[in-house]
């Protein structure tokens, strides 16, 4: 249950039995395929989710960076992001465990929509907690959840964002733990979540590793993935961790600056691996953005999906071990990356993914090596509105002319 000193189970006592029950279920169903859980999960990932997703050679970017560049196309997964791998796994596991109800939290709405889809597909009642401010900023995702039959519970405490939604979901779970499963959306939270979510997401690297070998032969020299909480990161890295020759780059959101404003309690970035310090948040010991007292500071990124003050404990450990190299890309560069992939490959990426793409521009050829796999964690449809606003307010050299959109999307 630990990754070095990271991880653990820092949760209220009331949740401990549920976490132990989950750990037991994880071992039996996921690790030992009891009742054919893994078979059903794989089948549903294929038929409902659309796996395997392609590993696509990006011809024009390969030329630009003078390397063989491959895109692992998680944007093609049902729902438009890698999130479904985990949501489907956990909702299915909850069914195997006999749970009657699903709760989940969501910030930008991607995990909420994935969970709502999985719950509709598997016919399990589902409630999603979401900060009121996030609800107002992510209306299409809220609507998608409602369409899938999920209840969306607005969280009005605090600033009404992801942090408050997580706390509120924990509270729901603490009250209903006997009948309810809490679908955590990333490789964070108390054990066994970081391990379990990583295993559900590992299908990304499992496929990519096999596809690379089939299409090119051997192993890539490097794997690049963006890192917020870190679920696509661990998914993309997991099956390469023991291949010492493969360099692993976790691209964090550098936001507008890597410095922390202690006065305001704000870190204008989400770079917990690069700049965070050890601490305990949301059930696990990991790297955090915190002030010197240990209060969690407000993080920031142009990509709301990366905007989180913590990170998965396993990633923190792999960074300390030197196995994963954390790097950062700031907001402006991420927007450039967004436009670059859209224009050169015909793939409009999520703003999260745009960070991974953008880093290629600042990486050295030694870092990239002769072959690179980049995880395209999601598609950008959800971010169109943000991209219009953010691009209009900055100097992004490769952006298309935005005049026609001066009135926004409507």
């Amino acid at each position: 249950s630990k990754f070095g000193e990271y991880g653990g189970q820092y949760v209220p006592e009331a949740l401990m039995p549920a976490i132990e029950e989950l750990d037991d279920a994880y071992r039996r169903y996921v690790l030992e395929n009891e009742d054919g859980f893994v078979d059903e999960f794989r089948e549903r990932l294929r038929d409902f989710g659309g796996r395997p997703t392609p590993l696509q050679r990006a011809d024009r970017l390969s030329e630009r960076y003078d390397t063989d560049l491959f895109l692992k196309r998680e944007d093609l997964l049902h729902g438009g992001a890698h999130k479904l791998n985990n949501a489907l796994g956990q909702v299915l596991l909850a069914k195997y465990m006999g749970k009657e109800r699903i709760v989940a939290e969501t910030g930008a709405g991607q995990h909420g929509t994935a969970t709502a889809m999985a719950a509709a597909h598997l016919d399990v009642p589902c409630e999603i907690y979401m900060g009121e401010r996030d609800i107002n900023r992510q209306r299409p995702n809220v609507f998608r959840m409602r369409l899938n039959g999920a209840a969306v519970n607005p969280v009005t405490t605090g600033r009404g964002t992801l942090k408050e939604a997580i706390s509120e979901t924990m509270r729901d779970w603490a009250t209903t733990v006997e009948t309810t499963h809490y679908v955590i959306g990333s490789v964070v939270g108390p054990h066994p979540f970081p391990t379990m979510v990583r295993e559900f997401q590992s299908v990304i690297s499992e496929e990519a590793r096999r596809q690379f070998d089939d299409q090119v032969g051997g192993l890539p020299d490097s794997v690049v993935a963006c890192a917020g909480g870190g679920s696509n990161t661990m998914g993309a890295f997991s099956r390469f961790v023991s291949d010492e020759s493969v360099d692993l780059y976790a691209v964090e959101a550098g936001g507008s600056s890597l410095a922390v404003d202690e006065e305001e309690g704000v870190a204008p970035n989400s770079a917990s691996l690069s700049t965070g310090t050890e601490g305990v948040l949301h059930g696990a010991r990991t790297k955090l953005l915190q002030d010197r007292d240990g209060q969690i500071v407000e993080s920031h990124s142009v990509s709301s999906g990366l905007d989180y003050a913590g990170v998965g404990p396993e990633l923190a450990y792999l960074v300390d071990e030197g196995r994963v190299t954390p790097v950062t890309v700031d907001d402006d560069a991420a927007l450039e990356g967004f436009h670059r992939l859209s224009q050169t490959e015909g793939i409009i990426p999520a703003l999260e993914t745009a960070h991974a793409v953008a880093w290629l521009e600042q990486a050295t050829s030694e870092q990239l090596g002769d072959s690179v796999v980049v995880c395209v964690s999601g598609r950008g449809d959800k971010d169109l509105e943000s991209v219009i606003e953010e691009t209009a307010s900055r100097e992004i050299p490769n952006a298309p002319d935005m005049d026609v959109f001066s009135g926004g999307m409507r």
Partner: protein
Amino acid sequence: MSRLDEAFADGPAFVPYLALGDPDLESSLEYVRALDRGGADVIELGLPFSEPIAEGPTIQSAVVRSLSGGMTPTKFFDAVETLDVDAPLVCMTYYNLVYQFGGSEARSASEDASGGTASEGAGPRPFVERAAEVGIEGFVVPDLPAEEAGPLREACDEFGLDLIFIVAPTTRGERLERIMERTSGYVYVQARLGVTGAKADVSDQTGASLDRLDRWDLPKAVGFGISSGEQAREVVAAGADGVIVGSALVDIVAEGTSAASQTASGDVAEGHENGDSTEAVADRLETLARELKRGALAGAERAQSERT
């Protein structure tokens, strides 16, 4: 026997909770004194953390108010050091604050030494040491399960402080054993599943939990949802050695605060006429404290009469 055990020795204990710094440091110290006057046997002082995952909306709001007012661990300890009350004090907070305390100096030192690598928290010892200095008797850390509590338990032992664990309605068997082995002072019996918050009824789960704890001598204080003298009476009658009350008291602070802030924009004198001065809120807290204490005592008499 620690001061906490002692507090339960002469009959049922009334254990109120307040977040220090809510809505400001001076007022909250006044409120603590009012609870002390009202008959508190132990007082739990909340040191607010930015992510209070075990709290309900009431206490979460208190935490937000306190943090907005600038509360920090250092200010918390400095304030406690000046506080002169009869009841022994317990600090209730989350583990990251315990873990990080004193780390800023340690961190700077390590950064100097290692050229900027991310450093680690100083661990629980400096926090416990400072708490002991200012007269804290023990800790409740709701996000620290027994399994992760080794370092804090050690530090508490070193400085002679108690570490109080929470036992939930779902805690049974081996887990219960493990927790009870590590608990000292008293055990915090969670009356129901969920988070903190005032409720109108007493949970059936309480009796079952107390039964499971019967074979341990440690005082059993029941919390989560107790808001009236009547409830306090029932809980103690059911076998509890004490009642922990938080949200019902914080509600009084919140109402006073919101009334005061409403009138702040109008005529200031009105605020006083409405009785929403710090003194008025303190009076109300003292009144509720007395009711709760009386309820607990009544419950004990009934338990006594049933036993005889």
